[in-house]
């Protein structure tokens, strides 16, 4: 097992990722609030440890599929902040050239198959990437990030059934932030632990503290090893919490202020990680501060460059519908 907490380089990397996600989304929130960003916005603030821990267990050529709440996954897998921000700002230099926005960022350079506006839409796609890896004889693995709400969809079921049957190298990684929009996952699924769902599919099910980078990493690392060894998929449920509303329209009527406060105050994944690595003596307070400063500077630069880029243009849209060459993420 890779020990992030006691490895200086990894701890810095993890902390950088955590902050990059947090600061990116705070910037998005700010830009949106100031009317400089359009559309809708799903923030994962409070959930940063899941993609951070998970992607530390992955190789660059491993695949991920992501969700409507996908900035964290994208950043943790290694996406470029400027191109992400440019996309959200509807710029020609954005990942999707302004055509997709937040819900559709993919990154061929990191084998990120993309966010998805459809709940559970990425589940069969991830299984397909796993099938592709299996058939091509590589030992790549596909990690399918999804929310607890996705577990109600038929697409989730069908993707998992096929992956289980063919022992595909896939990790289904559920971020249980307790709600699918307003629906409580505890109410929706009468299971002792959500990971018990796996019992219906003949694959291992694991529950992990989703606000603990190391714990997430370890669970994913085990599942990835299993997948690479040809033993098939694993279902991991990472327990976490979404601090912000589901999207802009959310008035948080389905949960209490107390609940939100208690998670923020006693279970901030970043504060926890900083405490852990400093208490372990892996990083000093100064190290931590340096990471924060670097991320702040990087992000500021990314936002500035993104904002200065040319707007997306409607020219050539009709020609953009069909591909002329096959762009494969192998």
């Amino acid at each position, binding site marked *: 097992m890779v020990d992030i907490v006691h490895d200086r380089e990894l701890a810095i990397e993890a902390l950088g990722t955590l902050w990059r996600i947090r600061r990116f989304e705070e910037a998005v929130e700010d830009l949106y609030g100031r009317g400089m960003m*359009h*559309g*809708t916005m799903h923030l994962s603030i409070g959930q940063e440890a899941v993609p951070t821990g998970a992607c530390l267990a992955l190789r660059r050529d491993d695949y991920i599929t992501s969700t409507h709440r996908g900035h964290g996954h994208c950043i943790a897998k290694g996406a470029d902040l400027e191109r992400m921000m440019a*996309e959200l700002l*509807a710029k020609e230099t954005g990942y*999707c050239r*302004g*055509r*997709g*926005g937040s*819900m*559709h960022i993919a990154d061929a350079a990191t084998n990120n198959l993309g966010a*998805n*506006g*459809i*709940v*559970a*839409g990425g589940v069969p796609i991830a299984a397909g990437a796993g099938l592709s890896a299996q058939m091509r004889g590589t030992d790549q693995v596909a990690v399918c990030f999804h929310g607890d*709400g*996705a577990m*109600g*969809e*038929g*697409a989730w079921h069908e993707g998992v059934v096929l992956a289980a049957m063919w022992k595909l190298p896939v990790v289904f990684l559920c971020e249980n932030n307790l709600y*699918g*929009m*307003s*629906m409580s996952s505890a109410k*929706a*699924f009468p299971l002792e632990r959500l990971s018990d769902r796996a019992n219906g599919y003949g694959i291992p099910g694991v529950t992990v503290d989703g606000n603990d980078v190391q714990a997430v990493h370890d669970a994913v690392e085990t599942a990835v090893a299993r997948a690479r060894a040809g033993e098939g998929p694993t279902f991991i449920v990472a327990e976490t919490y979404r601090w912000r509303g589901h999207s802009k*329209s*959310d*008035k948080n*009527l*389905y949960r209490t202020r107390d609940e939100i406060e208690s998670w923020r105050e006693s279970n901030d994944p970043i504060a926890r990680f900083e405490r852990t690595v400093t208490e372990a003596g892996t990083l000093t307070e100064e190290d931590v501060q340096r990471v924060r400063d670097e991320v702040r500077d990087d992000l500021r630069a990314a936002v500035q460059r993104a904002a200065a880029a040319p*707007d*997306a*243009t*409607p020219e050539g*849209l*009709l020609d*953009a*519908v069909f591909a002329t060459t096959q762009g494969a993420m192998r």
Partner: protein
Amino acid sequence: MTMQDQRVDAGAGTEHPVGLGARPGAETTEMTYAEAIRDALRIAIEGDPSVFMMGEDVGRYGGAFGVTGTLVDDLGTDRIRDTTISELGIVGLGVGAAMTGMKPIVEIQFSDFTAQAMDQIANQAAKIHFMLGGEASVPLVIRAPGGSGTGAAAQHSQSLESWFAHIPGLKVVMPASGDDAKGLLLAALDDPNPVMIIEHKLLYKQTFEVRTGDVRTPIGKAAVRRTGGDVTIVATGVEVQRSLEAAELLAAQGIEATVVDPVTLTPLDSETILAEVIRTGRALLVQEAVQTLGFMSEVSAIIAESEAFVHLRAPIRRLSGLDVPIPYAPKLERAVVPQVDDIVAAATALVREW
């Protein structure tokens, strides 16, 4: 088999409304499109124990577009039901409940997600009555917002009414005004067949003049919302509004347009459409949906094979969304669907060139 209980039919709603105002003949009040739907929901659910609504986040959350609002406080979680994220499931449960004495209203958060539910919509709900030889009926109402303009990109902005209008056994309506949003929902609940109501996201927060009380907008009748002798614009959904605005601008240039809103796509009131096309001899068909096999292809084909054919003074012109997925960037999103200016330009060209 029991006969359907006929509900009160106050306010016939069969006369043509002026613009996007209320149908004549009843008291009216101002409210938003969302409020008008909510008003209909309250009237229906309070008035009939078999009516209920289910969908994702329709309860405490109040609906993704705020349509149900605080209705759950008054009507309870039994009648305003929050579901898991499960479009196929909830439409399917709706079918089963509808066959067994209930009148379910299912909300699909974005009409794009009807893709998830297509089997229950097209292969079950639509066909059961016919396929079972009349042994059952499926009085199910499905509400789903369509359309672009909110920056939600390709998977949250489609105008998919064609898919449904192509399936025999479904009734399909597209309320363009608050008054029709209310009246059509109440009429849909009277209907023993599955009815798809394609609402429009951009209209929810707009204010309209709406009839009060238990009123109906008849399913199967087009509305002539404006009359002019130079060109007949047929438009659906949010394009009705844009066409009415365009008609005012055209009038300023001396071009008088008729604006026909089919209101119901199936069963279509071709008679009214054809009569209005024959009257002006020019047809401009405006929709937000992509051009290829958008609903206006059907309207065009109906005109071209009808007696109107010989009255046409110009080719039938469609003005539609581009054949592209809806892009995210605001400028791009605007560019790919017909705006007021586009309608003015197309109508002007049609009248000036032919």
